[in-house]
């Protein structure tokens, strides 16, 4: 009787383990945004003769990659608009005001993917980009996606650039002034597998 019970328990545990491993093999890999090795920066034309550069110092996000079925991959990014940094304190304060980012009313800039497809060398991700209270569909071409193992951690990296018009997102046209309407957003990020 005892032998029969032991065999039954062994079979149950083994079966569960096989089922669990089978489930994991098909699941997407979850990654957390690595703030230390990532950056979200931007540049915009100044007087149409040069570029002004800036970055957002506080960003969070997560993404899941399904290598077998890339259409099931998802990407999310949350940029804290208050952390804007152009290397000039007075200008940063000005950018936080309602004529620009209005960070007290719209504290974050968000991207949430709605569809993903694999392309050569990365992914083409379409999603909802919300800035200044306005949401628009934006397509990002993410280059990269190769996973490496470093220091016992599995890491994946992506890079992308996207050009956005501030006026499309409800920024006050009269406040655009000497800084060009179009801004180029440059995202370089690494994700650490959970």
């Amino acid at each position, binding site marked *: 009787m005892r032998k029969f019970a032991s065999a039954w328990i062994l079979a149950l545990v083994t079966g569960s383990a096989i089922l669990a491993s089978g489930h994991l093999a098909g699941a997407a890999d979850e990654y957390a945004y690595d703030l230390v090795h990532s950056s979200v920066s931007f540049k915009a034309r100044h007087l149409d003769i040069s570029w002004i550069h800036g970055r957002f110092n506080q960003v969070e996000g997560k993404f899941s990659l399904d290598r077998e079925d890339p259409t099931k991959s998802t990407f999310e990014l949350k940029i804290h608009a208050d952390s804007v940094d152009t290397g000039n304190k007075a200008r940063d304060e000005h950018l936080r005001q*309602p004529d620009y980012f209005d960070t007290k009313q719209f504290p974050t800039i968000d991207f949430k993917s709605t569809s993903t497809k694999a392309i050569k060398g990365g992914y083409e991700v379409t999603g909802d980009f919300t800035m200044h209270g306005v949401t628009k569909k934006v397509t990002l071409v993410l280059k990269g996606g190769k996973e490496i193992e470093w220091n016992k951690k599995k890491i994946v990296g992506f890079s992308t650039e996207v050009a956005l018009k501030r006026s499309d997102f409800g920024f006050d046209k009269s406040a655009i002034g000497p800084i060009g309407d179009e801004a180029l957003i440059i995202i370089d990020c690494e994700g650490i597998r959970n």
Partner: protein
Amino acid sequence: MPDPLLYLQAMGVAAIVSASIALAMVTVWRSHGKSWPNSAYVLAIGFGIALGCHWLAFRWQWPPTNGLNRLLICVLPGTGAIEMVAGCSTKLTRFAWLARFCLAIAIPRILLDGSVYLTPGGLPVLEQPLAGIYLMSGFPLAGSWWLLNRLSQRAEGTAISLTIPLSLALATLCAGLSVMLAGYLKGGAAAFPVGGTLLGTVVAAWLVSWRSDNQPAVLRPSLVPPAVVSAGVVGLFGLLLVGCAFGRLPLGRATVILLAPLACWGPEWRLTRNRNPWIVALIRLILVAIPLLVAVLLAKREFDRSMAPLLGAS
């Protein structure tokens, strides 16, 4: 970039539109009583502000997404609705004051809706310089609203009472300049249509009252309609709150500008009260102008120090 000519044009448009609408409505349908002129002034104020803001290419959004939008689309029309009902009958005075008080308490909540101040896990309210305004602003607003209304009734029918809407218009324009100099252009620009509308409606009310001199005092339209005082107080408060909460207008300066029109009470003590009305009016305006001038000069000094180098203005 700021365009002073555009702001002056918006102010002129608001003043002309509000004065024309008020005069046209009161002249076309001459009624004996105060109810119809009061409604006409409310509509004139509404159209004046709307067209002035349209001149500034203001973006109307529904539902409103920011504090300034909520001030212009929800708070000021709400004030107009209360004034329209209040003007229907003198029996509604108590109801009107209850409604005004409720609105005064609700305004900070409406203007800050959806912002970090009211978001769970957002900025802790008590650590903000805004705490004073958020927790107590409704009471100073209701208090100054009542005091200015009371003062306009004390001097009803005389030129002295005109100093109240003039003071409110002056304070609104100074609030706009201060908000702009603190870096929030659009918020400050909205003060020009509001200030222009106050001036335009008062001119219309003065003309209407002057033409109705032969009527008994009970039926004669008010020289300073309560709707003008209400729109002035609420508009001024709203602009200052938006400038403080979303822009960088210091709380102390905002408080000085908000309370400056109350200096009209200054000459109400015995020695000056019974002097020539024009002298009393002049003293009132000087008392109001002094703190406003100091507030604008401080705002300009701060602008020169922090913002002007950024804009290449100096």
